């Protein structure tokens, strides 16, 4: 049996975790939910740090059920805690290597120097006292420390929240690559929808200790009935294929179901598949084909669903071709001015596309 199947029940004073979900055997599963919804608690249950009732099966191995409870240190997982929690008595390097040394050589699939390089830790690694690191520095060391156990399941509790966007942009690609290189599933807690959309393949939505939705990222994000649709950065994920490179402008054309998009030049061969994120607020609609605009990505599409977003906005679910979905967020005024309704064909102008390089799955 492949994939991860989890069911946990845990009662706390005011809080009740009653979660059941499955997640794919590979790829990144985002645990997403408001503060206090039980994300950390759920992660702790998976790690075995909480003795919840229930069961957990990871790629065919039972880590927990009525009879079994594999102790934490025997679970081949890496855990990045919400607070960095470095060992104060160890140097930065010793912190990094703590788990590495405790991983059998045959299972070591990443080397300290690799991780130090990825996470930009070279100038910190000889520091003696981790208490003197800045908040972001500490968090990067904690990430590296977890990676160096070459885990078969990686649990990350908001690992990037202490990082500035530049560091984030540097680390994200590695995290993206990582789970593919290591071929491991990752559970990723995050508040940031853009991080989630960029990284995750699968989404588990939590609310007050319960799983309110769980499914493939692009499906879940395209649902107008979920809280995610109301986010400022609501949007969809598009699977596409590299079709052409235009070196002069440093652009790449990717083809998707029902259309094509120009994106920044990709270092990937023609034919490879890529993933792109398109935010609802970046998609404007026009009833006629726009002319002379700096927006080069225009997709002909059909309106599938309209749903009010607050008092002034409307979320519009679009079909591009038969299967590709797109979300657009426009003002109610524009909807009325343009007379938009279900079934109408419109031109979706995509102002910007966030690209997640490399193939997914």
């Amino acid at each position, binding site marked *: 049996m492949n994939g991860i199947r989890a069911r946990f029940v845990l009662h706390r004073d005011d809080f009740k975790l009653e979660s059941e979900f499955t997640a794919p055997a590979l790829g990144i599963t985002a645990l997403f939910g408001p503060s206090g919804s039980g994300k950390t608690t759920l992660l702790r249950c998976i*790690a075995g*740090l909480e003795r919840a009732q229930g069961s957990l099966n990871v790629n065919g191995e039972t880590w927990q059920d009525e009879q079994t409870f594999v*102790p*934490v*240190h*025997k679970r*081949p*997982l*890496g*855990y990045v*805690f919400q*607070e*960095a*929690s*470095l*060992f*104060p*008595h*160890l140097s930065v390097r010793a912190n990094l290597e*703590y*788990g590495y040394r*405790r*991983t059998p050589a045959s299972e070591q699939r990443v080397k300290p120097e690799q991780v130090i390089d990825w996470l930009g830790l070279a100038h910190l690694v000889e520091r003696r*006292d*981790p*208490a003197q690191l800045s908040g972001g520095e*500490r968090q990067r060391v904690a990430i590296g*420390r*977890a990676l160096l*156990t070459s885990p078969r399941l990686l*649990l990350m509790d908001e690992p990037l929240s202490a990082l500035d966007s530049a560091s984030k942009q540097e680390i994200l690609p590695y995290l993206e690559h990582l789970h593919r290189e290591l071929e491991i599933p990752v559970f990723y807690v995050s508040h940031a929808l853009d991080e989630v959309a960029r990284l995750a393949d699968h989404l588990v939505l939590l609310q007050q200790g319960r799983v309110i939705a769980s499914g493939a990222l692009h499906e879940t994000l395209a649902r107008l009935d979920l809280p995610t649709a109301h986010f400022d950065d609501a949007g969809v994920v598009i699977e596409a294929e590299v079709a052409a490179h235009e070196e002069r402008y440093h652009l790449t054309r990717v083809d998707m179901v029902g259309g094509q998009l120009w994106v920044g030049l990709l270092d990937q061969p023609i034919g490879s598949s890529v993933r792109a994120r398109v935010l609802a607020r970046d998609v404007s609609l026009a009833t006629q084909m726009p002319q002379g605009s700096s927006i080069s990505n225009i997709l002909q599409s059909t309106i599938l669903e309209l749903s009010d977003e607050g008092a002034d906005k409307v979320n519009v679910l679009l079909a591009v071709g038969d299967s590709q979905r797109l979300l657009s967020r426009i003002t109610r005024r524009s909807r009325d001015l343009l007379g938009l309704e279900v079934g109408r064909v419109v031109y979706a102008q995509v102002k910007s596309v966030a690209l997640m390089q490399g193939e997914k799955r």
Partner: protein
Amino acid sequence: MGLSGGDLQAIWLTVRLASVVTLILLLVGTPIAWWLARARGRWKGPVSAIVALPLVLPPSVLGFYLLLAMGPNGPVGHLTQALGIGMLPFTFWGLVVASVFYSLPFMVQPLQTAFESIGDRPLEVAATLHASPLNIFFSVAVPLALPGFLTAGILTFAHTVGEFGVVLMIGGNLPGITRVASVQIYDHVEALEYGQAHHLAAVMLIFSFLVLLVLYAWRPTPRKV
């Protein structure tokens, strides 16, 4: 130095006794302290109280009861005789046993406090990094509790050096075997040999001060991240 051969012998014996006792208590007291620090159940209170009990017993009384227990008619005496060890009173190892008993709380209490103040997080982190419970203990708990170990070691060592009532009761004041410095100084005082008493006391004080100075200079403060 103005110290007689007997004085030097007494000092050496004292250092040896205190070292052996500290060592044994490190081995015995550490697991107890660790257990007490982590335990949550209903046994924690009673065990804590029992560990602290030797504190309350006056050393002379403790010594008297140990003398009874380890004597030929006491339970411990029966045991040691059955084991072929012979009788413990009036031997170095008798002193060791008595002192281990006597100084137990001085090892356990500071260690327990030190272990407790580590908190759960570092131990959880270590577990997720594949450290087994035993390994966590040695690679995380012990280093983080280092100041506590030093405090506990100093208290235990010093308390054994300063031990008197128990030794007097159970030691029989045998030169080179059980006549430790505290007894030696006392004998000087009782014999009105104040000069020699002053000398030995001064030497012990200065020596102890220097040792403590070195230890404290080296002692780390507990660390936080």
